[in-house]
């Protein structure tokens, strides 16, 4: 049996088809949730944001014009929800006088312990990157997006995508270096 394309599902959702909504959710919720969770680092927040993303799909399906793929559209919405939640969290942290250290270049005991395992060390340092840098690495490496798609999701020019990716990777290398792992780049 021929499977409905994502675009077909969105058209059906625009007509109020609940089943199409369930199918689209089944196809995309995991990747969208992972993207949210990696940015927010908070399961409850990520789950709330995921629900808001799909609620927006339900509300806005009629205005989906197909200029991007459905998965890019979903990731763009997820990104907006995540950043809105991050901003709220940052504001609330500042209100409480807590300076949130998004990056910490110091010698980290976790990384120290993992120096013997380079992969684990890279993993630990990747987790310490800023959300801006994590998101671009995740989009390219895990979500396998193109330059154009990242530009659409993050809402930055295509050239900035390349620059941001370069800086994210450079930051990762610096974090590793500061923890005693030199990969000979940059």
């Amino acid at each position, binding site marked *: 049996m021929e499977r409905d394309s994502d675009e077909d599902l969105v058209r059906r959702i625009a007509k109020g088809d609940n089943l199409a909504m369930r199918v689209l959710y089944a196809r995309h919720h995991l990747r969208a949730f992972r993207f949210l969770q990696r940015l927010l680092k908070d399961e409850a927040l990520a789950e709330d944001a995921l629900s808001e993303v799909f609620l927006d799909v339900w509300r806005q399906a009629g205005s989906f014009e197909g200029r991007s793929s459905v998965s890019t559209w979903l990731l763009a919405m997820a990104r907006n929800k995540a950043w809105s939640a991050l901003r709220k969290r940052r504001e609330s942290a500042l209100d409480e006088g807590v300076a949130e250290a998004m990056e910490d270049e110091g010698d980290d005991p976790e990384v120290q312990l993992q120096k013997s395992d380079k992969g684990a060390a890279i993993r630990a340092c*990747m987790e310490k990157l800023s959300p801006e840098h994590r998101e671009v690495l995740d989009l390219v490496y895990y979500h396998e997006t193109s330059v154009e798609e990242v530009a659409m999701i993050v809402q930055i020019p295509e050239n900035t995508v390349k620059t941001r990716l370069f800086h994210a990777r450079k930051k990762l290398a610096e974090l590793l270096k500061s923890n005693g792992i030199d990969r000979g780049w940059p």
Partner: protein
Amino acid sequence: MSNVLNDMEREIEDLLPFYHNGRISAADRARVESALKTSAELRRRLDLIAEEAEIAIALNESVSGPSPRALDALMAKIEVEPKHAAHRLDAVKLGFMERLGGLIGALSPRKLAYAAALAMAVIAAQGVVITGIVPGGPGAPQYQTASAPAVSEGSFVLVSFAPEAKASAIAELLKSLNASITEGPRASGLYRLRIGDKALPKAEAERIIARLQAARDVVVLVAPDR
């Protein structure tokens, strides 16, 4: 071996992550592959990218999904959402004619919009008053009439009118059968007709259905309902 890149290689380096994930144009792919043949440093940097990508994928895959209740919670929210854009007309702000125009324009496919306009004309010809739009099945608004509120008593059939049928022809056919539209159009474009005040004998119902089927210029589909 130098680990310094020239300008051209530096440009290629920016493409390496997209070369690695396969999301690159054919022209850029050719440029990258040509540069990789001659630059050991670029090949080494591609290896670094592969290493990072493997770890980023593992990190993402270590995130399990949302709780199984998340979908149920979402669907519950959807259930209480106002109906879809096509249904979400501001009944307070818009006048009847604007509401009707907006409604017909919002209907899709076009045939349904035509059917809606046709239904208006037929209902008006039947002397009933449209009182408002009520939430209906997926995709299509429905009309509630003052003289024919949710009718449950009687004999019913479902029909689909020919798009080219004139409202006057439909009204005339319904009058000749002593039938009236009680519901529709549904998402499928079907209307529910009452063909008798009470349950008709089978032979009588079949006779009326046969007459509807014979009116091919007006009716394209007839099916018993209940």
